[in-house]
C-alpha cells in the first residue's frame, strides 16, 4: 500500500517538529494508541488497537526514527504484530516546509500487511489508512492550534 498526502498546519515549523517528536503528543493523536513510550533517542514502543474491516486487533510494535534532519524531515518506520490478525509494517517519509506562518507537512507512506489482515481486510487497507491519517492530522492540528498561543 502506498499513500501520499499533504496537510497545512497553522503553526510554525519548529513547533510542528517538536510535536512530531513528543511521545505525549503522538500518543494523544494516533488513533487507537494505548501506550507509546520512548525507549531511546530514536526508538519508541507502542500498542495500538485498530479495526480494519472485520479484523480487530491489538498491535504491539517498535517504531524507529531514521534520517532525522531537524526540523525538516525524518523517516518513521515500524512493525506491529497483531497475533492471529497478522502484522502491519511500513515507513513514512515526513517533510516539513515553512509556508508563511503555517507549516506544510507532506508524507509518503509505504506499508504492508500480512496474515488475516491481508486475507480479510486488504480491500479496506487503503481507505482505512487514509481515514486514520486524516484523523491523526486533524487531532494533531487541533492540538498544535490549541497550544499555539501558549507557546507564543
Amino acid at each position, binding site marked *: 500500500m502506498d499513500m501520499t498526502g499533504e496537510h497545512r498546519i497553522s503553526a510554525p515549523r519548529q513547533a510542528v517538529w517538536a510535536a512530531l517528536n513528543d511521545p505525549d503528543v503522538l500518543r494523544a493523536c494516533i488513533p487507537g494508541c494505548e501506550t507509546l513510550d520512548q525507549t531511546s533517542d530514536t526508538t519508541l514502543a507502542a500498542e495500538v488497537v485498530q479495526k480494519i*474491516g472485520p479484523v480487530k486487533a491489538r498491535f504491539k510494535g517498535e517504531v524507529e526514527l531514521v534520517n532525522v534532519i531537524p526540523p525538516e524531515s525524518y523517516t518513521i518506520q515500524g512493525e506491529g504484530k497483531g*497475533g492471529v490478525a497478522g502484522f502491519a509494517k511500513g515507513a513514512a517519509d515526513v517533510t516539513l516546509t515553512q509556508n508563511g506562518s503555517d507549516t506544510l507537512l507532506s508524507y509518503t507512506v509505504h506499508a504492508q500487511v500480512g496474515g488475516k489482515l*491481508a*486475507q480479510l481486510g*486488504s480491500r479496506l487497507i487503503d481507505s482505512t489508512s487514509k481515514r486514520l491519517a486524516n484523523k491523526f492530522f486533524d487531532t494533531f492540528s487541533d492540538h498544535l492550534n490549541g497550544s499555539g498561543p501558549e507557546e507564543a
Partner: protein
Amino acid sequence: MSDGIGARVKRKEDKRFITGKGKYTDDLRQENQAYAAFVRSPHAHAKLLGINASEALAMDGVIAVLEGGELNADGIGNIITGWAITSKDGEPMKCGAWSALAVEKVRYVGDAVAIVVAETQALARIAAEAVEVDYEELPASVSTAGTLEPGAPQVHDNVPGNLIYDWEIGDEASTDANIAAAAHVTEIDLVNNRLSPNAMEPRSAIAIHDEAEDHYTLYTTSQNPHVARLLLSAFYNVAPEHKLRVIAPDVGGGFGSKIYVYPEELSCLWASMKTGRSIKWTSDRSEAFLTDAHGRDNVTNIKMGFDENNRITALKIHNTANLGAYVSLFATVTPTYLHGTNYSGVYDIPAIYGNVKAVHTNTTPVDAYRGAGRPEATYMLERVVETAARELGVDPGELRRINYIKDFPYQTQVILNYDTGDYVATLDMARASADVAGFPARKAEAAARGKLRGLGYASFVEASGIAPSAAVGSLGAGVGLWESAEVRVNPVGTIEILTGSHSHGQSHETTFAQLASDRFGIPIDNVQIVHGDTDKVQFGMGTYGSRSGPVGMSAVMRALDKVEAKVRKIAAHTLEASEDDLVIENGEVKVAGTDKKMAWHEVGLAAYTGHNLPPDMEPGLKEGAFFDPVNFAFPAGTFICEVEVDPETGVTDIVQFVAADDFGTIINPMVVEGQVHGGVTQGIGQAMLEGVVYDEDGQLLTGSYMDYAMPRAADVPSFVVEHGCTPTPNNPLGIKGCGEAGAIGSPPALINAITDAIGSNDLQMPATPLAVWQALQAAKSAVAAE
C-alpha cells in the same frame, strides 16, 4: 422393477440430509475430548527462529503446545506425494520436504507451526493467538511463471530454480514439422485461474488414542478413508494398519480437496498420543481458504496447426503448473498424466507434443480439483479450436465435426486408447437443443436491445474411471486403483453392500442399492450401503476421478455375480430344478414355465440355516470382489453456451446452457443430471467468478467470501441436459462416470460464448464484469487505432 438400473429413484440419503440429521465429523463427541487450534505463519516465506508458548501454556485449560521438532523426533513422517514423475532428461522429480508442523522455515501463509490443545475450541484459538513465534522474513516467490526466472527466491534448497520436474509427452519433431508445414497455425496464451475448493463442510478431524490397546481411531472428512489409513500407517508412522481405524462419516463435499491427508489430521493423531486426550479440530472458513489444497493454476501457450482442408495436423503445448509450497498427494500427476494424456481431446490429431514444468511457489499447495488436469487441458484445447474456427472463417461446430475421432477404438498420440464414443451424436444433440440455427435471429434481437449475444461450444472427452492398476503403476503411481465390494445377503433377505467408494454428495446410498434391486427385484429400501469405515469395509481406494461408477459399481456387480451364482445353486437344489431354468425377478427365484418358486428371503434363510444345502456348499450368503479396470472410461460430449453481455457494464447473463453428454449406461438419470448441474455450476464459477489472488509478497488477498466469489443459484440458468449413450465394453455396466464432466466442459463453452459476444479473444478467467468490460474497451481502442 421400478428401483432398478435406469430408474429415476429419489435419494435415500436425502431424508437425513434435508432434515439436518446427517452425522458429520464435527457433530460427533468423544469422551475426554479436547480441542486443537493451529498456530499458522502470517508470512509466505520466513525462517522459523523460535516459538515461545509460555503465555499460552500458562492459561487455565491449555493442555499442550506441540511443535514440529518434537513431531519429527517422534518419528512422524513427512507428508508425501503419491506419484513419481520423471523429467524429460530422465531425472527423477525433485520436491521439498513437508513436515506436518514446520521446522526451520515456513513456506506459505497458513503453514502450521504448532498445534495448541485446550479444553475448549475457543480457548485453543485464544491460546494459539498467544503463542509468540519469532520469524526472520525471506523474500517470497509467488508468481507461477516468475518462479522459474533466474534470481527468483528459492522455495526449497533441494529444488534448484523451483523446478519440480520438466516433463514431456508426445513427439516434438513430428509436431514441429507439421506446424511448420501447416496451412494455418492458431496460437494463444492462457491462464487457468487458481481456485479454492470450498466444500460446504469444512475439514474436520477427531483423533482418539486408546492407550491400553495402543490403538488409534480417526474420524475425518475424507473421500478415501482406506487411503488415509495407508498413508498414516505406511508413511507417516502413526500406527500399523491393524492398530488404526479411519472413519469418514457423512462428508459434505470434497471435489478432490478431501482426498489428501493434511498436516492437521496427522498432527491431531500425534497430539492425541502425546496428551492422552481425544482431540477434535474443525477448520474455520479462513483456514479452509488458506490450507485446503487449491486447484488449477496453469500458465499455457498452445499452438494448433491445420491443413488446407481445416484438418488439425499438430498440437504443441507449453504449460507451467504451480504446485505451491509443498507437493500434495496427487499434485504431480494432475498436470501430467491427468492432463497431457487429454491433449488429443475428441480430435484425430496426428502429431502432439506437450511440455509441462511443475514449480514450487510460496503459496498454498495445489492439487486435484474436480476434473484434475482434464479441465485445464480441455479449456486450452477448446479455446484454441474456437479461436481457429474464427480465424479460418469456419462454423465452430463444423470445425469440430470434421476433426472428431469417428472410428473406435482410437489410439491417441498421448498414451490413451479410447474405447467407444460418438462425438457427432452429442454435437448434433446439443446443436438441436440449443437451436443453433436460430442464433443469428436471437443475436439481432439482442443487438436491437443494445446487448451483445454470443454462442460458444466446447467438446470434451475425459479419462475417467481411474484407473487400471498396472497401467498407472508403469507411469509412476504409488498405489493400484481398483475398487472392492462385498455383498451380504442377510437371513431375512435384506442386503448390505460394503463398498470402498465413498459418498460425499454422489448419492451412492441410492445408486449402489439400485444395482442389487435391479439384479434381484427387491426394493432399494431393503438394501443398505456401508462405506467410509476401515473396520467395516474390507478395503477401498475411495472416490475421485469419476471412478465410483465405472470402478466401484463394477466391483459391486462382480460381487453380485457371485451371490447370484450361489443363489441359483441353492434354489436349484431346493426346487429340484436346473440352474439354467431359474429366473430371478420381483424378489423371487422361479423355475421358468412352472409355478415352482422361492421367495427371496427364503433363499437367504436357506443359506443361513444350512439345513438343506447342496453337498459341499458352505453356509451363508456373502461374497466379495475386487475390480481392476482394463482401461479408463471415456465420457464425452458437447456443451453449448449462449450469453448476453451488457456492453455498458460488462455484466454477462448466461441465457442458455445445453450439456449433451455420453456417460454410457446411466443408473439414475436424476442423480446424473444433479452431477452435471453441479459440475457445470462449478465450471461457471471458475469461468466467471472465482480466482485465488495473492499479492507480490505471498499474502492471500481472497481469504473470505467478501473477496472470493462462489456461484449462486441466480448466477446460473436452468440447464438443458441431454444424454447420448455408447456403453464402454470395459466394465460390466458399460458405465463411464459423470462426476467431473460438467466442470471439464463448461469453462471453455462459457468463455467462447463471451468472446464471441464481445468480438475479442483477449480474455482470461474469471470473466468478471470488469474483465469483460476491459476486453471490450481494449477491442474498441484497437479498432480505433487501425
